[in-house]
């Protein structure tokens, strides 16, 4: 039976992985998600893939949002997905935002990323997508 109540499926870890320090977007998303009733954990800049996965585990997160603007996504995202799998955390839904060339999106989705949000995405679109996703026990 799925968790009922408004905290079900609403824990989000937001992460900046790698060296990129541009955090305007992720800070705005954090505020927007909080306003949208989500519990947001943002551990700050320069997270290693290992540290991110650890946080996801410790925080029992339903979602992981990655902000990547430096072009390193095709190295970092597979690494994180691999580590999540190793940790038995495949059910965590992954969202990616930032600067992701169109050409790379199909590959990311095929890897297991739930959705890629480009620049110009309204906050409501992100919140709606997350609210519509009923979680791993949907059915």
């Amino acid at each position, binding site marked *: 039976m799925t968790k009922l109540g408004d905290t079900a499926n609403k824990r989000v870890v937001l992460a900046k992985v790698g*060296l990129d320090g541009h955090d305007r977007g992720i800070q705005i998303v954090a505020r927007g998600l909080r306003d949208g009733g989500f519990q947001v954990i943002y551990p*700050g800049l320069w997270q290693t893939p290992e540290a991110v996965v650890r946080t996801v585990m410790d925080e029992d997160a339903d979602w992981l949002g990655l902000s990547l603007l430096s072009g*390193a996504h095709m190295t970092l995202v597979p690494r994180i997905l691999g580590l999540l799998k190793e940790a038995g955390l495949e059910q965590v839904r992954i969202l990616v935002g930032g600067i992701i060339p169109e050409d790379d999106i199909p590959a990311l989705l095929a890897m297991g990323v739930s959705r890629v949000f480009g620049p*110009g995405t309204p906050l409501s679109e992100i919140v709606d997508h997350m609210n519509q996703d009923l979680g791993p026990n949907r059915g």
Partner: protein
Amino acid sequence: MIQAANTADGRESEAFLRWKREWESSAESDRPATTVSLEPIAPLYTSGDAPSQGKDSAESFPGQFPYKRGIHASMYRGRLWTMRQFAGFGTPAQTNQRFRFLLERKQTGLSTAFDLPTLMGLDSDDPRSLGEVGRLGVAVDTIEDMATLFDGIDLEKVSVSMTINAPAMVIMAFFLANAQEKGVDPAQLRGTIQNDILKEFHAQNEYVFPPEPSVKLVTDVIEYCCEAVPQWNPVSISGYHIREAGSTAAQELAFTLADGFHYIDECLKRGLEIDQFAPRLSFFFNAHNDLFEEVAKYRAARVIWAETLRNQYKATQEASWKLRFHAQTAGCSLQDRLPELNLVRVGYQALAAVLGGCQSLHTNSMDETLALPSEHAVTLALRTQQVLAFETGVTNTIDPLGGSYFVESLTQSMRNQALDYFDRIEKAGGMIAAIESGYLRNEIASSAFAYQREVDARRKIIVGVNAFEEGEAKPLELLKIEESVETEQCERLKRVKKLRSNEETRRVLDQVRKVASAGENLMPALLEAARARATVGEIMNALADVLGRYRSCMQ
């Protein structure tokens, strides 16, 4: 909110009253009339709004205190702004090629973009650099890379800007040591190193060491260059990044100038004379969408700087009072939908910078939301400046917007808002305290969020994004950074390490640690380290051993 326009004897004129009636009875658009910074703007400005100024007062002339209309008597009639496109990607050889490409197309100065590992003081072979080498700028690990970067470029003829902050003193040492090895007279070197660590703590987050030791490193470069490289700008006090992080124009203005004042205070504490270093302090502002707000911002910047340097810091040389700035069109305004529209945005933004009297300008390329600029896109961006300079006529007269009721009113308002912020930073305990408490970061984040709300609610329109949308986009030919860049750069680094004396490297790094511990100027030790072929990462690690590493508080 409508400003009254008073006649000379203080009464509202018949014509004004009539206008007011007609205005009030006409339908107004339901979208609020605000600047991009969300400042409300009146429908009309009149002589009653422009601050009174004597017809022939010194204030109204370019090249005269407080330089509201421009820092030189002739401005663009004497010499155009420098067209200086920020460039860098891949290996030093690739960036050298792009530099030559741009110089061939008649840009008049160079500006260097470094990759993230270099910006963060890491070598290309550091595990944390994986996937990041050469992607956002050029990879520089040792002085050898500096040599390749400027190969075939006459450093006595071309001015060079380098955008780097946390490891600025290291890169400056590499640049200087390379110039010396090539027989270039340091007195002939012209250029700028950004070296503005304070704004990293406010906005860009490319810091390594804690705030106070970081500022000391900035001051080392200023002190050293004053003597050794007299035509060099040892710091480019920046508002660009603060604005990119989402601040308002007034915050950009205030926080940048406040940073400048903090550096001055530190230099004075060290025993430097104000007129010794102030003339070489330079600035870097954003050129955003709202044209008049930007022009007012630049004019207000010149006025505040001149007043503060003369009246508060008692500088006696005019060169100390003159605020010189580089401008860059707003990266955060570029969109990935209908990217050709970015050409238009950049055109308007460049116009703002020029109407505002910038000394140097970079125009963004239309494809920069997607990748680093392609050759075609950067050519168009450069040509945008050339069209502006040669086809529009805006350079024919100095400060063409001077005297505009609107612009003079905005200039004064911008100045007042900045002064208000100076007070608030004081009350917050000064610059370092304001950084540590997160006061400035919070101001910026709040502005960023407020703007996003306006966009999401469509009270602020972005063409092609939340209005006037198109369907399928025609794909652009984008610059691709090859995977091989990282391997190639790591191989290069390996070769340099093999050929150098590791004993000498150890010695110079020990010296760096020693000097850092003693609190002396690090530049001589860094120059030695550069010559020994020590790497950026090695030097930064040596410094971190003494200065520690910093992680800012997260709200």
